[in-house]
């Protein structure tokens, strides 16, 4: 499975990334990795961090299947939505060598000290928990399990903090 990660900036968001996954035999999918910062994040974590850090040095991350976005808004794109049938290993590779690479890059570009995610499904939350426990310390990031336990946001303090 081949994974490419590239910057995909727009006027609205210079910190947008594109993760391209190609499994061969016509199985490919593109994902938008969206980072959001600013004052809107303050209410989510103001029990744990200062308003200044949340406003200036914090990013929320989420990702979206690009073809699904095209489908929702009815814009024609000449590809079929592909079910990628990820195996367990492929899914881990997608997160670690795709989404995580985008996180590392945006942290280097912005100096962000906090990156967090807000999973809306238990299955996704459990998966994030497993990956963060397994990998965060390898890159000198701190996974704040106490925050996860209290408010169910998945928070990483980066090596810039």
């Amino acid at each position, binding site marked *: 499975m081949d994974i490419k990660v590239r910057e*995909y900036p727009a006027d609205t968001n210079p910190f947008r990334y594109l993760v391209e996954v190609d499994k061969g035999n016509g199985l490919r999918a593109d994902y938008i990795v969206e980072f959001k910062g600013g004052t809107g994040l303050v209410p989510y974590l103001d029990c744990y961090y200062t308003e200044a850090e949340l406003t200036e040095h914090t990013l929320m991350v989420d990702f*979206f299947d690009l073809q699904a976005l095209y489908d929702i*808004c009815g814009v024609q794109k000449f590809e079929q939505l592909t079910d990628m049938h990820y195996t367990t290993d492929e899914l881990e590779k997608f997160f*670690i060598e795709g989404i995580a690479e985008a996180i590392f890059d945006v942290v280097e570009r912005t100096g962000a000290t906090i990156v967090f995610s807000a*999973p*809306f499904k*238990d299955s996704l939350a459990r998966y994030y928990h497993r990956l963060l426990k397994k990998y965060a310390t390898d890159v000198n990031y701190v996974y704040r399990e106490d925050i996860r336990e209290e408010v*169910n946001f998945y928070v990483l303090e980066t090596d810039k903090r």
Partner: protein
Amino acid sequence: MYLKLTKDKLTRQSPRPLSAQEISRNQSIHEALRAELTAELKQKGTLGREGRLITTSSPRLKARLVRT
């Protein structure tokens, strides 16, 4: 070898499930972002322009696919 899991061990390995309120909150966050992206896509026909490739032959983390 049989290993009896303690309550602490279970707590550590399995995160607390999302409450209904947390699911609703997180769903709202996700849907708001998605709505912004679809609005942008409708308006501009694209979400960005292809920029610098950041993938390298030696990513900072390599997936360790042995089950832990």
